[in-house]
């Protein structure tokens, strides 16, 4: 039953993809009727595009060919404006992971403290509530001004956007550890550090990982936007640079790779989350 459902779903997915590709193909078919256009304009945009012989929007096969090219050689580096898509993704993932890990280093211990102290929870709550809804990109000018380095600013933006979900979830997870388990630790005279590591941490781990999963999703969304602003390297910069190059196929390759990497990141954290989840 479950297997047949999965098979049906897979067939349907393939069918939907095929329909989408077919629609795309039809929409970008070359039009045969010749058009007379202004000579200046033709010079500017290229003969083919100006006369309508071929749409400026790539066909699925154009895109496929470009994609294959990227897959075959993802890691070349021919100067600042021509790097392989793999290199650019590596820059983005590295930057994002650095910001994310820094955020985890701050958010998890701080969340622990807040979660264990009702006073701290209440005292910090207004700050968290105000800071949480701020778009991370709004921090960018302030970061550039104070940090004076575009790369560090991008990492800071990732840090600031991933810190809140992790902080809130850690605090919530720690605060809602079952009273019974804490009482067990109390009656066994377990020392505070051991209690934190062997009772509270495993009890709160699923909630903490949920926060991390949300954070890494947001961080991946934000890094693309931040790199468009900051420039230099990264997949966000790549997409923006290809817009300046008017290479729609490259923009589309960038978009697809962002999606794939985002999915992979979510999958990995999801596996980790599953590993620490317990059944009561």
């Amino acid at each position: 039953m479950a297997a047949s459902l999965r098979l049906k779903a897979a067939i349907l997915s393939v069918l939907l993809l095929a329909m989408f590709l077919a629609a795309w193909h039809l929409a970008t078919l070359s039009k045969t009727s010749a058009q007379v256009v202004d000579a200046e304009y033709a010079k500017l945009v290229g003969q083919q595009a100006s006369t309508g012989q071929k749409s400026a929007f790539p066909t699925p096969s154009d895109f496929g060919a470009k994609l294959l090219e990227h897959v075959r050689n993802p890691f070349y580096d021919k100067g600042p404006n021509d790097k392989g898509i793999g290199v650019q993704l590596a820059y983005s993932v590295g930057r994002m992971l650095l910001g994310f890990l820094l955020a985890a280093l701050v958010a998890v211990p701080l969340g622990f403290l807040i979660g264990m102290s009702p006073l701290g929870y209440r005292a910090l709550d207004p700050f968290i509530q105000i800071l949480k809804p701020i778009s991370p990109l709004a921090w960018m000018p302030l970061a550039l001004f104070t940090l004076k380095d575009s790369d560090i600013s991008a990492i800071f933006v990732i840090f600031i956007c991933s810190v809140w979900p992790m902080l809130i979830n850690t605090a919530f997870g720690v605060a809602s550890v079952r009273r019974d388990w804490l009482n067990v630790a109390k009656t066994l005279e377990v020392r505070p550090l051991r209690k934190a590591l062997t009772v509270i941490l495993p009890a709160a781990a699923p909630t903490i990982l949920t926060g991390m999963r949300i954070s890494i999703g947001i961080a991946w969304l934000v890094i693309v936007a931040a790199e468009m602003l900051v420039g230099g390297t990264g997949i966000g910069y790549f997409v923006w640079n290809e817009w300046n190059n008017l290479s729609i196929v490259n923009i589309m390759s960038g978009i697809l790779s962002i999606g794939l990497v985002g999915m992979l990141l979510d999958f990995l954290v999801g596996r980790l989350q599953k590993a620490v989840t317990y059944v009561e």
Partner: protein
Amino acid sequence: MSFLQIQDLAKRYPGSTVFEGVNFAMEKGEFVCIIGHSGCGKTTILNVLAGLDAASGGTVIMDNREVAGPSLDRGVVFQGHALMPWLSVSSNIAFAVKSRWPDWNRIQIQVHCQKFIDLVGLTGSEHKKPSQLSGGMKQRVGIARAFAIQPKMLLLDEPFGALDALTRGTIQDELVRICAATHQTVFMITHDVDESILLADRILLMSNGPNACIAEVVENTLPRPRDRHNIHHDPQYYRVRNHLVDFLVNRSKLYQTGEEKRPVHPPAVRPGVEEAAEASAKIINLRH
């Protein structure tokens, strides 16, 4: 001086008193049950003994030391078993054993845990997670964990309340066996009159709360060893049982209204012993 002494214990909240003037003592190796309706403060008394709750007044002295805060000297079996779901059966017990003997190596801990796993009849389930166990098995792990630290006193908070009658019976049998073997001092909360007669040496009867008190201490005159399967054939069984049920149904509410006097030191009663003596005297008279 008794092993455990509770003097003038009280728990008050602003505007209400749960219980006050609670006095009783326990000897080493004794099994004491406490019975009373919900809200009389049984669990609070147990939590004070465990060091998990603070009383508003009075003192608890165990083994010549005042009880202040939790201690490894008093093991607790919680009502809701309180096993850590991410740990296996043996790891749950090992967690307690490591707390009790931090210097032990892995093998010492493992051997000690296994002994108590075998004791409660969970051999073969060492590596199961609590979610894979039935309610009865979970409670056995809780009992094994409490016994494994070899505390001076064991506190059981209605440990079989959530179990079905059949499972409850088997675990009661096991508890009887383990207590007989270890001479453990036990203080236990129960709602089950039959359970208290099977297990306890003495049964504390609490009047209804608020303003509850210990009204009476019933001495369980049924001889040991007791067997769940034929204990009810002893004529004395129903004398004790009727006394307990009478108290819970009729008398437990009279202490609030003043129809029954609140005792400072609860009287010890031995229900049915005089009647039994009279009855046997009659039989002897008839024979003559």
